[in-house]
């Protein structure tokens, strides 16, 4: 019995280790690369022991092709689109989860249907629209475009969280003289915070990691870090070490956010698995 249990644990750990290795290898490789000189990067066979240097980071941060402005752009774009998404998605999801209104089913389906279109198919129409209204290569233009796919996603995700909160919660709040808005604010939102956190993270990460729309619809004045890193790949050569350092910088906030929010994400993904969490 005990032996079987041990074997099982061992196998599970081995599988987990393998998956972790597969996932972590490129990241670790990029991390190593970011501390190498360009010459070491191209060495064959690859060197594992080398003299680490922070030069790439210095170049990428403070050199002529500094990524700092691009990181700032990414923060603005991802931050603003996340905030706006939450601002609109929370009331929308709440309404879809709770209120009865004509066309509710249809609008719910419409929200989901927008997720079925391949984003690439939308680039040209978006480009033309933005060009017409003079919003190409502007923060506002890119943020609005990001909203078109983050909003439906966020609404769809959060509806299920709101539906999970018993209706009696807000009925109690309504009877306790809170009114709808304060019921939402004091009673419903605090209970949905796991779901809101998960949604926030997903939306932020999507916007932060987005490349395709940014490169086509932005590019010059508005150039998030994902696009800017592309500059290290040119016709003549690819500056692998700088690319790696840039990638590390671009990844840092993502990883920090992931670590910080891990608890929420895990809790959020298992929502409904354990009903109520001590509510009764």
């Amino acid at each position, binding site marked *: 019995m005990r032996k079987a249990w041990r074997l099982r644990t061992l196998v599970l750990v081995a599988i987990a280790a393998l998956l972790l290795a597969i996932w972590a290898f490129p990241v670790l490789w990029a991390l190593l690369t970011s501390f190498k000189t360009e010459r070491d990067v191209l060495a064959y066979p690859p060197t594992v022991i080398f003299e680490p240097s922070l030069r790439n980071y210095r170049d990428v941060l403070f050199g002529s092709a500094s990524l700092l402005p691009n990181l700032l752009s990414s923060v603005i774009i991802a931050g603003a689109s996340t905030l706006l998404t939450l601002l609109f998605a929370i009331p929308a999801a709440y309404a879809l989860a709770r209120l009865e209104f004509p066309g509710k089913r249809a609008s719910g389906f419409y929200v989901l249907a927008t997720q079925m279109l391949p984003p690439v198919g939308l680039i040209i129409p978006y480009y033309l629209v933005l060009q017409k209204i003079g919003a190409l290569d502007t923060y506002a233009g890119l943020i609005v475009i990001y909203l078109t796919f983050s909003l439906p996603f966020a609404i769809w995700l959060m509806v299920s969280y709101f539906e999970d909160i*018993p209706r009696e919660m807000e*009925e*109690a709040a309504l009877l306790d003289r809170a009114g709808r808005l304060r019921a939402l604010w004091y009673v419903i939102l605090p209970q949905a915070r796991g779901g809101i956190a998960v949604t926030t993270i997903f939306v932020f990460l999507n916007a932060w990691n987005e490349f395709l729309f940014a490169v086509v619809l932005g590019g010059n004045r508005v150039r998030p870090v994902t696009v800017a890193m592309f500059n290290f790949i040119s016709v003549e050569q690819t500056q692998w070490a700088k690319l790696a350092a840039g990638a590390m910088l671009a990844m840092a906030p993502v990883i920090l956010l992931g670590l910080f929010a891990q608890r929420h994400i895990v809790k959020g993904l298992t929502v409904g698995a354990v009903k109520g969490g001590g509510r009764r």
Partner: protein
Amino acid sequence: MSFAGPSQDAVNRGRSMASGGRVSMRGIVKRHGAFTALHGLDLDIEPGEFFALLGPSGSGKTTTLRILAGLEPLSAGRVLLDGEDVTDREPGERDVAMVFQSYALYPHMSVFDNIAFPLRMIATPKDEVERAVRDAAAIVHIDHLLARRPGQLSGGQQQRCALARAIVRKPRLFLLDEPLSNLDAKLRLETRVELRKLQRALGVTAVYVTHDQEEAMTIADRVAVFMEGRIVQIGRPQEIFARPASAIVAGFIGSPPMNLMPAEVHDDKLTVAGIDVPIDRPLGRAGPVTLGVRPAALRIAANGLPARVYLVENLGDTTIVDLDIGGLVIKLRTEQPPSVREGDSVHVTFARDAMHIFERDGGARRIS
């Protein structure tokens, strides 16, 4: 858990809530699409009354309570509280408090914050909130648990917390939606008594929904019996028990409920299971009826209706004997240990004045 009833000091401070609380519901209709949940309901509840809405699930009692609370829009009719028409008022503007079946405690707030919530929503000064919360918590004996979260409380404590949240507002009306149904049997009996004491002490009007007839009969001043979206009888528990308005009510009230047997009326006698039973009062009609007899009114005797003993259930202080009368099983309840055994052939009899006679068809209304 202490069980001394509500703390007297705290109750005295809470007593001022006993003002008003008269409820009138007029012609209440509730439709869900093609389905009619309530068919034109009229109901009057006096101030200070403990009023139970009793009925099987789906009979409309909870819908009625929710309409009173303002949580459910109605299709027709008016709701009046103390003579004021509140039909179109929001739940929070009706000065009513509700205890939900699930308690609906806010899980992210401490017990203190839960109880304080309705006061904070009307911007009550901080020290006043503090005092009112402590008083309300003391009344239901949870003043030592104020720092906990609802999830850290037992079922009974959660129930008290929900009660305190209702008490703290000093509302004119308490609405209780099956508040005891999530408690275990022993606690339910204890809390039932306590709830009654508390309501008396506070003098507040209470409307109490339950499907448990015993609960309604023991706790309420008056009971409205609901069946299929209609009130079929309103009265004091003893009245409903003694003179059920229809065979349906009769078959719902009492434990076990009244035995109902098909019978025929001919002149001055009643034929049930092939046996003629004399009746002492003229019914003014002939034909098929339903005869009702309470289990406790049945006796095993030397002659009477022939029956076969089907099952003997010994409950300790009482015994229920299931009797097969021509294929119909009726129940007899006795305090004396009966000398019969399963399979015995016996005769059962009952006093004439223990007979309830109902229409066989239509509304199964009481005839006599």
